[in-house]
Structure formats: structure tokens, C-alpha cells
């Protein structure tokens, strides 16, 4: 383990159980072509009031992990093993009724595309009030008042009248605000935001992220922010978990991961991110190759077919031995810490500008 410079707001290592703890999570889908190992031995922790950014390409298992936390996978075609502890309560294998009481109440989710994620058949107000009425036993009238209050809180003008509108009468940004209002209506302790800004205009993105931050301060929720956009994470999250092929390949605080990343995949993500301050002539560097098939992931380190530094590791360790992600700060890579640091400083950092 490497020594870290500790920021003041990092969780105190008192040995108290974290609010959300995921241990050795495996999620497998049986399909006609075989078994898809969508999440492959994932572990992470999250404290109250903190934001964890989960970053990775499409198909890296980000969304699958979080749907597993909510228990939204079809049990017929999905096998989930491992531990998901929410405030000490085991969620894997929990009964549907138990999960129903937690969903929308203690843990809530914001989906990527608010147009398809909101039902076109019911008013925004009704959809916001539903979980409130269900979980708190409030009357329909109280639910409606609560919906108006929430809409006001997320910055919808004239919430008293907009509450009776249908989602298609809202603009994209307002729909996402409504979605956020819906997820926060019961003051959840855990909020999972699955690419909450991807379907929105860039100008609206920042507003939505600010809104999430403000609401987190007000409610003290723990947030998991799923994204493929490192820029979003940099502004919003406290910690980062980088996922690749269903595994965590690097974790650390935002500062640590963005300033001294320790996995070639993270280098690739940083290199493919456009920068306003960067040289216009400097081309973006995409990561070569495509994400691996999760039906048949590469042996050893799943990133090795796309990695430019396998030659630096002795023998065929990259293709035969699965690198371990150390607890706390670290990256799952066979390169030595010193070598990683020198490669990052010499090869990667200059190109980032």
C-alpha cells in the first residue's frame, strides 16, 4: 500500500461499517450465446454524504452494478452473488417485498434519458407523488403538495401548475429535474445517478450537476454518479472508481486519480477527453481497440489486448495473471508503481496539455 496525502473530508478509517458496501459482486446473465459476466468480482464502499463517480466505457458494468444494488435485474435470467450491504442490510437475495420498501425510499435512481424513463401516460406530479404516497402512507392530496414542493426545490418555475403537466410538455432539462425530484421525494440516503446528464444539452448539464450537489448538501445523501465523462466526475465526485470489463481497475479520490492515474486504461480515458485549454492541433488519442466481449473476456488482465505497456511487464503475466486491485488507493495493473509514475509523467501527461 502506498501512503496517501489525506484530504480533510476523506472518511475516517474508524472501522465503522460504511453506508454502502459492495463485496465480491458477480452479476451474470444467461443468454442464448452463453453466460455474460457483466460484473466480475467488484468491491467498493461509499459513505454518507460522499459522491462516488463510477467511470468506464459502455458495457463496463457500471449500470449493471447499480441495477443490482436496486435489485432491478430479472431474476430469471440473472445470477447475482456477493454482498451488497446498505446500512448493514443485505440486499443480494433479499425478498422482493423488502426491496420494494427500500426502492424509491432509502435508495433511489435517476436514469439517463428522462424522456423514456418517465411514463408518457401520467402527469409529472402523479409520478413524483407515487413513491411518496406509497412509502410514507400520505394521502393523495399530501402527495400532490409534496410533488409541488419537490418541483419547486429542483427549480421548476410555477410548480403549482406544472405539476399537472405530462412529461412531453417539459423540456429535456426540466424532465431531468422532474426525474431528480421524483428520486428525492422520500429523502433517500443513497442516490444512484446513471449518466444523468448524457441526454442533455451541455448548458443544462452543469445546472443539473449543481442541483445534485446542492441537494446532496441539503439531504446528506450518498451519491453514486455513473458516467463515461471524466469532466463530470472531476466537478462533482469525491472518489472515483474506474471500471473495465465488469471489474474495478482503479480507485482513489478524484484528485489522486486525475492527477496521478495508476492504470493504463485510466490514462486512455484521460487522453481521449477533449480539453478546452488544450492545443487545437493536438489530436485526441482514442483508446485503440474495442471493449472486450463479456461472454468470453480476455484472460489475465482484461485490458491487455488494448494496452501499450504489456511489454514492460515481464513474461506473459498480463495475459495469464489477473492483477489485483489493492484496498484503498490503487490500480489493478502489473506495472510497478515507480514505472507507472514515470510512464505517466513522461508519456501521458505531456500529451494532456
Amino acid at each position, binding site marked *: 500500500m502506498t501512503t496517501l496525502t489525506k484530504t480533510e473530508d476523506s472518511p475516517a478509517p474508524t472501522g465503522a461499517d460504511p453506508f454502502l458496501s459492495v463485496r465480491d459482486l458477480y452479476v451474470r446473465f444467461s443468454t442464448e450465446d452463453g453466460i455474460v459476466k457483466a460484473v466480475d468480482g467488484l468491491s467498493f464502499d461509499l459513505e454518507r454524504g460522499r459522491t462516488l463517480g463510477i467511470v468506464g466505457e459502455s458495457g463496463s458494468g457500471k449500470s449493471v452494478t447499480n441495477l443490482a444494488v436496486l435489485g*432491478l435485474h430479472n431474476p430469471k435470467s440473472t445470477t447475482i452473488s456477493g454482498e451488497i450491504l446498505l446500512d448493514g442490510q443485505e440486499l443480494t437475495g433479499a425478498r422482493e417485498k423488502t426491496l420494494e420498501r427500500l*426502492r424509491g425510499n432509502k435508495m433511489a435512481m435517476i*436514469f439517463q434519458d428522462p424522456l423514456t424513463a418517465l*411514463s*408518457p*401516460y401520467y402527469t409529472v406530479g402523479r409520478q413524483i407523488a407515487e413513491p411518496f404516497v*406509497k412509502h410514507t402512507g400520505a394521502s393523495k392530496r399530501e402527495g400532490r403538495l409534496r410533488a409541488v414542493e419537490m418541483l419547486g426545490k429542483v427549480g421548476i418555475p410555477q410548480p403549482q401548475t406544472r405539476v399537472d403537466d405530462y412529461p*412531453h410538455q417539459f423540456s429535456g432539462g426540466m424532465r431531468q429535474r422532474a426525474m431528480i425530484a421524483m428520486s428525492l421525494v422520500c429523502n433517500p440516503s443513497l442516490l444512484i445517478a446513471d449518466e444523468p446528464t448524457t441526454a442533455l444539452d451541455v448548458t443544462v448539464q452543469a445546472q443539473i450537476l449543481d442541483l445534485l450537489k446542492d441537494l446532496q448538501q441539503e439531504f446528506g445523501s450518498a451519491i453514486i454518479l455513473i458516467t463515461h465523462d471524466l469532466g463530470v466526475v472531476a466537478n462533482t465526485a469525491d472518489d472515483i472508481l474506474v471500471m473495465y470489463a465488469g471489474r474495478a481497475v482503479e480507485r482513489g479520490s478524484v484528485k489522486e486519480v486525475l492527477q496521478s492515474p495508476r492504470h493504463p486504461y485510466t490514462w486512455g480515458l484521460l487522453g481521449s477527453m477533449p480539453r478546452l485549454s488544450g492545443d487545437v492541433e493536438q489530436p485526441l488519442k482514442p483508446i485503440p481497440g474495442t471493449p472486450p466481449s463479456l461472454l468470453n473476456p480476455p484472460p489475465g488482465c482484461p485490458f491487455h489486448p488494448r494496452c501499450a505497456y504489456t511489454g514492460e511487464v515481464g513474461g506473459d503475466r498480463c495475459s495469464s495473471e489477473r492483477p489485483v486491485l489493492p484496498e484503498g488507493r490503487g490500480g489493478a495493473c502489473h506495472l510497478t508503481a515507480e514505472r507507472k509514475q514515470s510512464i505517466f509523467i513522461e508519456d501521458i501527461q505531456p500529451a494532456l496539455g
Partner: protein
Amino acid sequence: MLQFLLRRSIGAVVILILISAFTFFLFFSIPQDPALLACGKNCTPDAIKIIHQNLGLDKPVPVQYWNFMVGIFAGRDFAVGHCSAPCFGYSFANNQPVWNTIVDRFPTTLSLTVGGAFVFLLVGLGTGMLAAWKRGTAVDKTFSSVSLVLSSMQIYFLGPIVLGLLVYSTDILSSPKYVPFTENPGQWFVGLLIPWIVLSVIFTANYTRMSRSTMIEQLQEEHVRTAKAKGMSSRYVFFRYAWRGSLIPIVTIFGMDLGSLFGGAIITEQTFSLAGIGRLAVESVIKTDLPMIMGVMLFSAFMILLFNIIVDAAYAWIDPRVRLS
């Protein structure tokens, strides 16, 4: 919404005018003289000529068409008597205005089709939703295969079998007959039960299969997942979120089925000897009762268009996006 209905109504009127013109010129141009029916046995050319004059058949066809159309709204006077609006002409075979016969026969057909539609929607949607709910289980497979068998049934095949089983050999029910609802609701129900079942069978299977597949489709929609993520129970999500969305394709198909439903009514009425509009259509074709054919054609076209507009209005009730745009 109002504008939408208005547009649909205008469209329907245009369609009705086209249908009336088409039927009129088609039937009045075939070499069959309607006057022969009115003339009776000892018919002389002079008598036919007088009848022609009395009924306006000596005038050119466009003029006759015009008089016919005006008659619908203003009524007409024939030598045999006054035919008050709506006048669809005078039937020589029945010796009474066409409209009176239609009014007489219509309740039977309305009871038959509405009741039949109610049965196949209830049973079809019910079994389809149950199959979707129990997807992949024995229940699902049973419903799916039974519906496949039933969908290949025909009314004139199934009708006699049901009659034989429930009426002739077991006396569970008496022979189908129409008793007006206003007269005796119980007998109305019992008398039409067999025709309803037989008429609905050929439709039920389609609705089972369709509501099953649209429900399964809807259950994979993202907004249905959102509802689950809010902690709503599976039952609530199924009936409130998925079902609402599955109604739209079903209503669409139902609108298209209205025509076949009337076609089915013709065969059903014929099979069970019920005196409805369908049977009237068959009788009048056999007797070459041209004004009656004309009247039945126009009337059924009107009813089908009317129900289509009602179905369109149902869209707006189901989907607020239609209502507001």
C-alpha cells in the same frame, strides 16, 4: 382534440358520399328492373311504365342519385306513400320504406356485435395479460397454443358444434334468439350467449396473442423500470404502467377489426337465424332488393365509421400526447 374529431368527421362524410355514389351507380346500372318486384304477377309493360314514373325510375341515374341523397335528409314522396326523412328509398320486396326495416333489425346486430366485442376483449386481453404475467410457464404455453388453434376456427364450423353441444344434446341453453334488452334483460342475455361466444372465438385468439406480446414489450420499457425503481409493486407496475401502454396497439387493431366484426355478424346471424342487419343484407341480395341493399350498405358504413371515430377518441383518453398535440 376537438379539431381532430372534426377532421375525422369530415373525412367520414366524404367516405360515406363516395360509398353511396359507388353503390348507387353499381347497383342501379345492373340489368335488373326494380319495378318488376313491385309489379306483381300480371304485369304488363304499361303497368311497369307507370311504376317507373311513380318511383322516378324513368329519370337519368344522376338525377335519381340526387333525389336519393336529398331524400335522406328531406324525405320523399312515392306514389305508394310518403317516406319521411331519413328516407333511404322504398323496398318493393317488403313494401315498406327501407329505413323502417333497418331500424327494426338494427338492435339485434348492435347487441350481437357489442356483446361479442365485449366478450373477446375481456377474454382476449385477460388471457393475454395472464400469459405475459406468467411468461414462460405452463399457463403461458397453454394459452398460446389454445389461441393458435382457436384462431383458425370459422363461425359456420364452430356454430353448429356449439349448438349441438349446448342446445340439442344437453339442453343447457335454448336455441339462440333475440329478445330486446328493454323487454327482458335476462332473456336477452341468455338468448345471445351462444352467438356471442361463437362470434368472439375467432377474434379472442388474436387479442390474446397481441396483448401478450405488447405487454411483454411494455414490461421492458424504461419507464416501467423507473416505476419499479420507485418501489411500486410488480402488480401496480404491471396494471398501471405496462397495461396503459399496451392499450394503444390493441385499440388500433380493434379499430381495424370493426369491419370484420360486422362481417362476422353477417355470418353469425345467418348461422343462428337471427334477424339482424347482416341477415337483412343477405336476404336483400338474394331478392335483388336494390334499395334495401343500398340502405344496408350505407347504414353499416356509417356505423363502422362512427365506431372508428369513437375508437380514435379513445386514443386521446389513453395517450395524453394525442390529446394535447
